[in-house]
């Protein structure tokens, strides 16, 4: 599926071309553009800064190693976000299994929430961590990276309809978790 090019996509393509042509600053340019966003995506998925750092590093290494196979008619950002989501899901799979919101609520977060966060914020963060990893990815892409349904569909390689139905369900579960906490 071809996507509408934007100025940002053009800059990505130029950097990808530059890297493949051996330009010394191209790799640094791509890392500078994406490291923060990928790190934060992984952090929201994994709730662990060390794991997020490892994932970000692995993602860039894999991306650069496979850059020759990247088809420039697609958007670089969809491609690298997809690698990040998949790598984060792999890390979650390797962790010992946890109970999801669908099974039982109130599972403690792997890392404590910040002390100054509100109670509701804590509850929502914990509820997010209890979503199924695939659904958590949708919520993070939508509400932290502000992706559209189409962009999420591209990143996760699923149909737009599936994006909507899973995102809406996930949000419903978060809403219920928030409501239960307030009751």
């Amino acid at each position, binding site marked *: 599926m071809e996507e509408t090019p934007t100025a940002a996509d053009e800059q990505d393509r130029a950097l990808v071309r530059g890297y493949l042509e051996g330009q010394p600053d191209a790799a640094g340019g791509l890392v500078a553009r994406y490291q923060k966003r990928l790190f*934060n995506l992984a952090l929201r998925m994994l709730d662990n800064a060390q794991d997020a750092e490892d994932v970000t590093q692995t993602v860039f*290494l894999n991306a650069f190693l496979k850059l020759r196979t990247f088809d420039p008619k697609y958007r670089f950002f969809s491609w690298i976000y997809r690698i990040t989501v998949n790598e984060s899901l792999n890390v979650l799979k390797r962790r010992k299994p946890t109970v999801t919101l669908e099974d039982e609520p109130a599972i403690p977060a792997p890392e404590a929430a910040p002390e100054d966060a509100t109670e509701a914020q804590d509850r929502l963060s914990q509820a997010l961590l209890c979503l199924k990893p695939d659904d958590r990815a949708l919520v993070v892409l939508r509400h932290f990276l502000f992706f559209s349904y189409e962009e999420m569909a591209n990143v996760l390689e699923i149909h737009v309809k599936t994006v909507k139905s899973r995102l809406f369900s996930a949000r419903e579960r978060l809403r219920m978790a928030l409501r239960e906490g307030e009751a």
Partner: protein
Amino acid sequence: MLHRDQIELIHREIDGANTPDESAAFRSLIQENPEARALEAELRQVTAHFARWEEREPPPHLKRTILDALPPPARTSHPIARWTVSRLRLVTARMEAMMTRKALLIGSTAMAAVIVVAALVTGFPPMGGEAGTIGAGDSIGGVRQAARYRGRTMTQADVTLANPEIQALFQNDRILNLVKGDAFREMMQNDAYRQVMASEAYRQVMASDAYRQIMSSEAYRQLMASDASRRIMATEAYRQIMSTEAYRQLMASEAYRQVTASEAYRQLMDGEAFRQLQSNEAFRQLQASDAFRQLQANDAFRRLQNNEAFRQLQSNAAFRQLQDNEAFRQLQDNEAFRQLQANEAFRQLQDNEAFRQLQDNEAFRQLQASEAFRALSRSQQLSEAFMNEAMRAQQ
């Protein structure tokens, strides 16, 4: 009991994904149905919580660790070897961070041995900088010189205090303290900052009267210090919007200015204000413009409008004051300013904590608003000389 279609309509409205007709249907639904209103309110509460998520800076060593692990495409070393080296570097960098804590220094000879071994294998940390490299010899080390400052030997005229403009700047204690500070040092070592400084658009903007007025205004300072503006500038949707032609056209239109300056627009979410707005001639002109329609159809724009931080920004008093400010309007009309805003390096810079600190710094604002700094901005040689003096002052 709400139907599935109605629930989806509410979710899509929350996501800013409804068409104008669907949005009208949504408004009717929540006016008529208390259950729908309650659902919308609860979902907005959920999304508002997400809007408070703070973006975190990646560890400072991460970029270097990644780049060190990457060979140029022509190099044929084995991926596993590169991976091993990269892991070693990551471990080393983490250990280095841990070692800065005094408590860990005592009795940590085993860890120190690992660092030494890792350093021998990986060449980390770098053994000082190249001659003339920005940051050479300091604790950061190895930061490569930006293209702008590389490849040309500075002449004596460039680097001495003989230049009256530079002399004037360095005689000001506050500016001297500023350039000696950590935030300024970090900025000079920042790739994005150097790219922006080297761009023609940046120089033109810096030399404009409108920019100086804005930079020295209290409203701008307040706006840049606001959490909402930081969050919105960091979003992908904002970045996309800033690079669209429709957005630029709209920002330059008189109708848009009239509308955004109106009280009714500010209370757009309020039904009564929206009706007032619809009877406003300027708003009708705006709605009839191609640029407005393009922007309305733009997915990124819809997401931006739906963003909690963006809403906060629009209701921010300093933001309104800026929008009503004539100099701000002139600046938005300025082609160089638009180019600068669409520039990726400039966006990265705005997202940078050290840059924000600098912008919040009174001395930095004084520096940018000064006649001398404008003169520097017009001349690459003089700005290079200033940077050289700043680096000397830091040593």
